[in-house]
């Protein structure tokens, strides 16, 4: 006995660092073993970096934007210089009409020609869409729009969903009944059609697009959380906690939520992709963001009448649909792989 303990203590002198502990934890081990999860994580990281440092990578913004950040023809180089305030103003530009630098999200046009022009013809990196909008600029700044819309809509949905779901699940009885009926009504509403009506009624800007998508989006989370709460309520460890004296909302937050959060995170991460796709669908129907706004859905929509090339060269305008399409696919893929990875990682009982 004694010799074993001695041998053990000899090794115990090496306490692993916090990082090491995290890196070697069961969760991370599984994550690392899953190459697709890594791909998803890396892609997202790249998107985040590209979005954040848009001012450095993107082509020069349009004249209204430059004017609003206080840059003139002579000082235009400031926008790529992290030491100058102009750079940080650009970084902080939010795609909301209230933001002073909102104009920076309007894609600069190299011409007014309705015919798309290739990179060589237009002098841009990836070419221009119908109307002369710079594709590369739209893609880069579109990253911010995508993150913004995705996170805002899903975030809103999560918060509202968790609140409503918690109330319904915890109190039960008639409160639960009423809230569940409300959710049933939301589910019965024809989502895309209502979103279209909302945007038509409220006006075509990014804020209203988000409202239109968020109005219907939260119901799913509420239902799941409430279901989980009902299920867990029955389980032993809650009764155990109650026996120990835990009360009321404390039970929800300490014991129930953490277990449900896993499911919710998985679904939320998948939903970010679908929100971006739904916004793109609205653009297709002519009800998305304003014309010329840096949004991937809008850019794909520009391609709509130009998917067919001249006779004899049907793929002449391939770049108009290809690049925005590719970036949408990569973005949604990244979130999906990450979501799948979360699921695998948080899954307790699967085969190791």
């Amino acid at each position, binding site marked *: 006995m004694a010799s074993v303990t001695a041998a053990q203590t000899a090794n115990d002198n090496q306490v692993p660092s916090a990082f090491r502990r995290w890196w070697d934890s069961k969760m991370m081990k599984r994550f690392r073993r899953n190459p697709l999860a890594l791909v998803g994580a890396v892609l997202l990281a790249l998107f985040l970096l590209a979005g954040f440092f848009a001012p450095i990578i993107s082509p020069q913004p349009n004249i*209204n934007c430059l*004017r609003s950040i206080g840059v003139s023809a002579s000082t235009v180089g400031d926008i790529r210089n992290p030491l100058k305030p102009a750079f940080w103003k650009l970084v902080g530009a939010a795609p909301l009409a209230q933001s002073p630098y909102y104009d920076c999200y309007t894609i600069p046009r190299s011409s*007014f020609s*309705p015919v798309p022009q290739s990179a060589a013809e237009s002098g841009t990196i990836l070419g221009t869409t119908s109307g002369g909008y710079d594709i590369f600029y739209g893609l880069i700044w579109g990253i911010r729009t995508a993150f913004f819309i995705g996170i805002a809509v899903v975030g809103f949905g999560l918060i509202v969903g968790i609140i409503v779901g918690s109330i319904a699940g915890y109190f039960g009885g008639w409160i639960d009944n009423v809230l569940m009926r409300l959710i049933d009504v939301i589910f019965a509403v024809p989502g895309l059609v209502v979103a279209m009506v909302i945007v038509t009624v409220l006006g075509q800007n990014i804020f209203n697009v988000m409202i239109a998508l968020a109005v219907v989006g939260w119901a799913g989370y509420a239902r799941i959380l409430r279901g989980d709460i009902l299920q867990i309520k029955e389980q032993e460890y809650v009764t155990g906690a109650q026996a120990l004296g835990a009360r009321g909302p404390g039970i929800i937050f300490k014991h129930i939520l953490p277990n449900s959060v896993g499911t919710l995170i998985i679904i939320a991460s998948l939903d970010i992709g679908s929100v971006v796709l739904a916004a793109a669908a609205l653009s297709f129907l002519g009800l998305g963001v304003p*014309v010329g706004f840096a949004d991937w859905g809008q850019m794909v929509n520009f391609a*709509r009448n130009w998917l*067919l090339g001249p006779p004899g060269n049907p793929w002449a305008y391939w770049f108009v649909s290809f690049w925005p399409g590719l970036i949408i696919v990569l973005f949604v893929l990244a979130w999906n792989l990450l979501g799948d990875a979360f699921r695998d990682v948080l899954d307790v009982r699967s085969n190791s």
Partner: protein
Amino acid sequence: MKKYLLLFLGLVLGTFGLAQSGSDTFVHQTLAGGPVSLDPVRAYDTASGHVIENVYETLYTYDGESIDQFAPALATDYSVSDDGLVYTFTLRENVPFHSGNIMSCKDVEYSYEYGFVNANPEGANVYLMGDQLLGQHDVDGSDAAAYQETVSFETIASSIECPDGPDGLTVQINLQAPDPAFLAIQAYTAFSVIDSEFAKANGMWDGTEETWADWVGRDVTQEFLHNNTSGTGAYQVVEWTDQQTILSAFEDYWGGAPAIQNVVIQYVEEQSSRILALQQGDADRVIINDRASLVQVEGSPGVSILENPEWGATCVSPAFFNFDINLENNEDVGCGELGCGVPADFFADVNVRRGFAHLFDQQGFIDQLYDGQGRLITMGQPTSFLGYNENVDVRTLDLEQAEQYFREAFGGEVWEQGFEFTALYNGSNTIRQTALEIIAENAAFLNPNFKINVRSLPWADYLARTGEQKAPMFALGWCADYADPKNFIDTFYSNSGFYSARTAIDLPEMQERIDEANSITDPLEREFLYKEIGNLHYDLAPMVILPESAPFMTVREEVQGIYRNPMMSGQFLFKDISKN
């Protein structure tokens, strides 16, 4: 079993080749959204007109491609009294309706009266002929009580008579004031001759005074003639949905059975799909949104692009200035004053307007958007209309001139303080959007204090906002109802025309001439007056007129006999064409 298998396989393989539409069928693919109604007194849109003009006919119609020469259709002859108040038409004999009934004066009488009895606010009868035949055009079926008070049945009945009796072949139309455009207006589909027996037998108005009150302002889209037709035209309606309209030839047509047996008009939203159909031969003619897209069609085997430098459009698209902007609750005017916004009378200053006119690059617009095929428009009406003045200059991009005018505007304040406002256009109309953005860009280039935002509104919102006089500057348009300058000049420039509610336009020099031209009938005198209005347009710059794109038609080579009449909804009648 084997037999069926072979048969099936045969059919399968066979249908792979069945792409082309047969030589007796004509397929036309156009934009989505079908006819609103097939009842002539209710329809006022192009899609409806396209069907109605092939199914029904009027007394006189356009002669080929001409918009001011008229050819006999249901009438063979006409005469006008010396005072210009009485028109007498001689009807054609033995003209059958689709139902088999023979056309006579009673049908013409019924059709005209029905139009005035129903006085549909969404139709065109009262609007177009109210003044001439009823003495007014402001009150219509939307206010049934007021209409019945203002217009008695007596007035309606006496406007059109059958001197030789209901079955006779003479029609007499009595005007309350001479109208030089009368023949042009009666050619419009709203005055098509309906089969009165057919209508009466199927629950429509019975033609008497006793029941006319029931029909004033009635919603005729719920009635029989909405989707049932019996006209004299060369085609009958087989089916009408918002997906397609199918017409088939009327064998007993008075002009002889037409060559094309079946016509299918398909309403297809996706332009790529339409282009592919044309290339595959599944469609014989397609509508293409704009000239720039022609690059996808040019050179396709079997496809012809028809163009003719003499062809002109019958729509005019200006960017309007609002002379008296409604500043209340208005997010498009900035702070409502120079410097940070615009004051209500910003565009009332002629120098501001002239300055703006010199910010728009007319020829550049044509080059970029119309592939170089277009024409500058000198004044607010189609080039082919009476009185169009082609000798007037068109103000175009000239930054020096622009600066000069802006410096003079508002005593120099405009140049010093600058301004900010939002210009509006509708939906996804790229032509209008681009025009406004060109102006905005040049303005910013000229003076960094000139800030113009450009924003699009959905159609309903757009109409409402401009109607409330809130839009400082907006791009809209007008398409011809009938081929007379009155239809445009009054609309754009008059202080009581359609646009005056949106622009508060009031230019006395122009108004004088407008009023005078409306009160005389001599075409030469009128022409002179309208040409003067053209000169005034240059001088006073009340709006910036966008150049028009050269019209074109994209058809299959097999189609013969196509012509282009800009006043027709479909540019030509199906009865006049054939296929190889």
